[in-house]
């Protein structure tokens, strides 16, 4: 079914783009501000407290008060800091976090009297690649902040952030490869269309392990607990932004929450159908050419409904981010490296191979690309996920008790290793084995 709404004229196109940019930017900033409140509220509720509730109804104006406070606070610049990079770092960390949102489709196309308006700022043909490229830039701000502060804690935080970003970037990219293989495209609108219509199944099911790996890597990419070694306030003061004050500090904060929001929106788009309303075909549409829609007829109400659904999905992931943060303690640095290189990377590589193989076999057998195709992949993924979880569950490093041989043989020669186990009386070792 093809609907011709009509393309926008050149002036209408410019106006619509500017409007979308302004609206998306302001909505993102407001939501990011509210996320700081949400974080404090959720942490409070988890700890049986009430959270901020003095400023405005239910504490809703708390972010405004915080922002005002940060604007009015004294701004300090350490004497030994490198001036240019010290000032550049907050801007460099906030910009990638915000511009990633440009390629995320956030609602069904909107018909207007002047023509059809895509509900995405820039429907780039290289959507996901753009996201991977830009989101890696975020670490430059962090590394620059840590280095230019000329503070050992900040520097250590920056080093850790850099190492972590390098380690998990690989798994992040690899976990997305099966998505491209299924969608046959890296455009985000196409990924949404695949989930709505062609497959009829959200990719969280046929690519379950991909989803899991992407979620883990996204936690690491956004430097959120349990991967927040770059901040690690109990070890590194506050890590890379130790020397920052007032609004510059606030900008790192905004960048973190903007990253969380973007990562959540990405997970919603890539794996939960984007703005797709489940169990309803009335919203399945895609723009094939300017002004031409394939699928259901676009409508203003449909645009609003899909926008709401997209918001709900995104906020769900935001909530998971916060929920995990206030539950799980921080990984040790060696555990992060272990998980990144020895668990995530081989798993992602093996998984890509497995999915490529499955898709090839399914195509060779002649199963049409559709719902059944998706169900078979779901089955394969269930097995793969179960296997992955089983392997992680056996993993001695994350669980925190490495085999005795590795601990002792790693000592350099000349140092006498004392085997405590052999000497310990039997009664003691038994009492510990609870």
């Amino acid at each position: 079914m093809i609907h011709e709404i009509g393309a926008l004229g050149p002036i209408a196109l410019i106006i619509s783009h500017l409007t979308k940019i302004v609206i998306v930017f302001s909505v993102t900033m407001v939501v990011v501000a509210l996320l700081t409140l949400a974080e404090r509220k959720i942490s409070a509720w988890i700890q049986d407290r009430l959270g901020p509730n003095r400023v405005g109804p239910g504490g809703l104006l708390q972010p405004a008060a915080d922002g005002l406070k940060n604007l009015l606070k004294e701004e300090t610049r350490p004497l030994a800091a490198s001036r240019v990079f010290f000032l550049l770092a907050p801007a460099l960390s906030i910009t990638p976090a915000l511009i990633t949102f440009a390629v995320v489709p956030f609602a069904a196309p909107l018909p207007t009297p002047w023509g059809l308006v895509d509900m995405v700022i820039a429907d780039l043909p290289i959507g996901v690649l753009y996201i991977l490229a830009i989101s890696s830039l975020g670490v430059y701000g962090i590394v620059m902040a840590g280095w230019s502060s000329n503070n050992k804690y900040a520097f250590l935080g920056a080093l850790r952030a850099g190492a972590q970003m390098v380690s998990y970037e690989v798994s992040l990219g690899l976990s997305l490869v099966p998505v491209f293989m299924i969608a046959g495209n890296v455009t985000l609108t196409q990924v949404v269309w695949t989930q709505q219509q062609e497959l009829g199944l959200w990719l969280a099911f046929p690519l379950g392990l991909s989803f899991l790996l992407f979620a883990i890597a996204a936690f690491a990419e956004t430097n959120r607990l349990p991967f927040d070694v770059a901040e690690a306030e109990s070890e590194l003061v506050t890590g890379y932004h130790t020397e920052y004050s007032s609004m510059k500090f606030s900008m790192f904060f905004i960048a973190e929450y903007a990253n969380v929001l973007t990562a959540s929106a990405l997970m919603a788009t890539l794996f939960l159908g984007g703005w797709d309303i489940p169990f309803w075909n009335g919203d399945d549409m895609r723009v094939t050419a300017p002004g031409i829609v394939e699928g259901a007829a676009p409508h203003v109400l449909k645009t609003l409904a899909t926008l709401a659904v997209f918001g709900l999905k995104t906020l769900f992931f935001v909530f998971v981010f916060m929920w995990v943060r206030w539950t799980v303690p921080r990984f040790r640095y060696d555990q992060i490296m272990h998980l990144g290189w020895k668990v995530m990377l081989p798993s992602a590589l093996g998984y890509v191979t497995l999915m490529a193989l499955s898709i090839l076999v399914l195509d060779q057998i002649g199963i049409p690309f559709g719902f059944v195709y998706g169900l078979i992949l779901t089955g394969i993924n269930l097995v793969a996920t179960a296997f992955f979880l089983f392997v992680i569950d056996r993993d001695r490093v994350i669980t925190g008790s490495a085999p005795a041989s590795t601990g002792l043989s790693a000592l350099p020669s000349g140092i006498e290793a004392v085997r405590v186990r052999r000497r310990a009386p039997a009664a003691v070792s038994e009492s510990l084995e609870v």
Partner: protein
Amino acid sequence: MAIGVKTVRRPRENTSYLRATLRGMALTFRHLVDPRKVTIEYPDEKPPLSPRWRGTHRMAVHADGRPKCVACGLCPTICPANCIRLVPGEDDQGNRYPVVYEIDEFRCIFCGMCQEVCPVEAIHVGQDYENSEYTRERFVYDLDRLMAQDHDVTALWDPEDPLGQ
């Protein structure tokens, strides 16, 4: 001596990271949705005080507005922190009264011995803790200020009922 690494073999269900994490998530979620919270919203809502809480002082007053104090001098004598300043006076009928009665609440250690020793139950420590001021001088309470206090007074420790039940 070199450091040895001792490994304790524990059952899988005790060491599994995944299972521990899932249990933790379930626990935090239960607390998240639990409407019972422990916060006391302080200025609006105050925690109950023990009947034996000893806060800032209060001077008991006769019906005609005179202080009950007879300037016997027992409280400055027993005060371990030496925070009470008393200048006694005597009127035409030979009644003793305090000309100056000041308590330095900064020096006071709130032991409550002044209240215990007072023969006429004039000076008391009270059920009060909101006593911030803008200057240090304001913490020396004079007689008028002590008489103007209107908070509840502390229950004396009763040897018959040591737990205050």
